[in-house]
């Protein structure tokens, strides 16, 4: 086990930069999830930590040692690939023990380590099978087994669950979390699935365009997204983003959205009267009620029952909103509905920079 330090790391392919000056420090035993859309550089960063990609600038330290020039085999890390990357000509047992054989581990120890890992992952009965006879979930388990037999300094996961169906993904997610709790090995996990990120991570690193947007606990990112990108990327159903204008009335601040509807906000550190802003509000924070109680009104456009709750799409004169309610409501399309956006739940971003207004 080890900490991982990433200092000013950049990567470019020829003249094209894909990672810009990334700084990140990962504690010993921490589970960090790198999340972002395709092409944001998260997989590249992971592969640089693994030693599969060269580092253009900066330094990566594993357990205090600079590994920039070390070959993957000398970094003592394990990696689980999206494609599983099992050796098709070897049995499950040989797949799992390959790294140990390369290190010249004595046979008895190898056998005991492999069978311990196999029973931990429920693979005992499959040890003599070839990968092509296994199901997707079993292959994924073998890939994890191959990583844990070695007790490496860190686990790297490159979208390991993307090829599994939704049910299996949920199940494996829980297993990965349990495994991490048991082994306590430093883990870096790349995904574009924000549910995986929220549920697994001690800390999430949100990336976009080769730049780290925000680092924080899952709830940090959810409740205090630092910019419009993070706000939009984290959360499902996605956050509502409305155009608005800042109004300053002496000490009182409010935002004006749509046709002059004003909502007073918590005091903001700066911003001037008339400044364009983007107002974000999570669907579960939008309060709707079928009674006209004097508040702003909108029409129901679509109702999506989710089982757990219901997503109600509503349209006001100037904007559309999604509301998530736990009740099983079934408003007919076109129903007039009143809604409220509680001031304390608003996220206000600068329309120009996309950054959150400091409070």
């Amino acid at each position, binding site marked *: 086990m080890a900490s991982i330090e990433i200092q000013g790391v950049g990567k470019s392919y020829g003249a094209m930069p894909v990672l810009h000056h990334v700084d990140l420090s990962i504690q010993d035993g921490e589970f960090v999830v790198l999340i972002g859309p395709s092409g944001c550089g998260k997989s590249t960063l992971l592969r640089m930590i*693994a*030693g*599969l990609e060269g580092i253009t600038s900066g330094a990566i330290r594993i357990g205090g040692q600079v590994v920039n020039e070390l*070959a*993957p*085999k000398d*970094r003592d*890390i*394990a*990696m689980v*690939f999206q*494609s*599983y*990357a*099992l*050796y*098709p*000509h070897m049995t499950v047992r040989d797949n799992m023990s*390959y*790294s140990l054989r*390369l*290190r010249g581990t004595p046979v008895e120890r190898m056998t005991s380590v492999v069978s311990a890992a196999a029973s931990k992952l429920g693979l005992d009965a499959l040890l003599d099978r*070839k*990968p*092509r*006879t*296994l*199901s*997707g979930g079993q*292959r994924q388990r073998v890939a994890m087994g*191959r990583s844990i037999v*070695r007790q490496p300094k860190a686990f790297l996961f490159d979208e390991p669950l993307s*090829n599994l169906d939704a049910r299996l993904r949920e199940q494996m997610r829980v297993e990965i979390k349990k495994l991490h709790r048991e082994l306590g090995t430093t883990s870096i996990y790349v995904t574009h699935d924000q549910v995986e990120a929220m549920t697994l991570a001690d800390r999430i690193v949100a990336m976009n365009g080769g730049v780290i947007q925000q680092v924080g606990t899952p709830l940090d990112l959810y409740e205090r997204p630092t910019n419009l990108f993070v706000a939009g990327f984290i959360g499902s159903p996605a956050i509502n983003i409305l155009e608005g204008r800042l109004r300053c009335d002496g000490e009182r601040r409010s935002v004006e959205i749509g046709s002059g509807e004003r909502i007073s906000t918590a005091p903001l550190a700066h911003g001037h009267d008339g400044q364009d802003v983007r107002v974000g509000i999570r669907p579960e924070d939008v309060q709707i009620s079928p009674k006209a109680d004097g508040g702003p009104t909108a029409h129901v456009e679509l109702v999506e029952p989710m089982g757990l709750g219901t997503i109600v799409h509503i349209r006001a004169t100037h904007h559309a909103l999604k509301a998530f309610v736990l009740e099983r409501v079934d408003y007919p399309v076109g129903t007039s509905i009143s809604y409220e956006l509680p001031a304390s739940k608003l996220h206000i971003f600068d329309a120009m920079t996309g950054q959150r207004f400091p409070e």
Partner: protein
Amino acid sequence: MKSSAYSRSYRFLHYGLLAFYVIFALFPLYWLLKVSVTPNDLLYSEGIRLWPSRPSLAHYTFVLAHSDFPLFFKNSVIVSGSTAVLVTLVAALSGYAMSRFDFRGKMWLVGLMLVTQMFPLVMLVAPIFKLFSPLGLTNSLTGLVIVYTAFNVPFATFLMQSFFDGIPKDLEEAAMIDGASRFRAFQQIILPLTLPGVAATLGFVFTAAWSELLFALMLVSKAGASTFPVGLLSFVSKFSVDFGQMMAAGVLALIPACLFFLLIQRYLVQGLTAGAVKG
């Protein structure tokens, strides 16, 4: 039951076409066999028949016992075998490099390798002869192996490259993270999975070298270093062609090629990579 009649006639057409193709492709081989077992006196007197009225193995006996054919045969095995092994070795390494690495001048190298495939070989006979003669490589099997290797490496490299391209990069990366060096990953993970490709390359190069006539004829003038295609020409004399013996030699020459393909066909058809990734 219109559809079953339709499917029956479709199947009839399907197999009919296949049978026609197979017969068309194999008939020359059959004719080779037929002529080889036809005694000389029946060859022209019987007219066109599918099988001689009195088949005999006399031509085979003659070819094996009284001609230089066993020597030609041995020379061909040596030349084709060494060429196949040498080319496959070089092509496996260069094909891997082409598939996995980006290096300066790669496009130029690929272009140049393609250029070598564009020349009619006849154009190169004279310069190569001039080159080989002072080096003592004419009239020698080594000379032939060198020429064949040089001409087959580019195509074999492309062939091997396409096989390596079909093997996911993740596999060797996984091996490298597991603690293998790149060469070790190549040797223990990638190469076993490329066996079908290796077999295809071996087979392709072996047959190419086995049936090559031009250089074998031009670079070798003494019987001791002749290969089998050159040997076949010795059945053609100024006044007659000894068809029976020639065909018998031809049938015998097919044997190693057939054996070779029998040996490697297991790898040719095997989709070893199934189950490597995803699913």
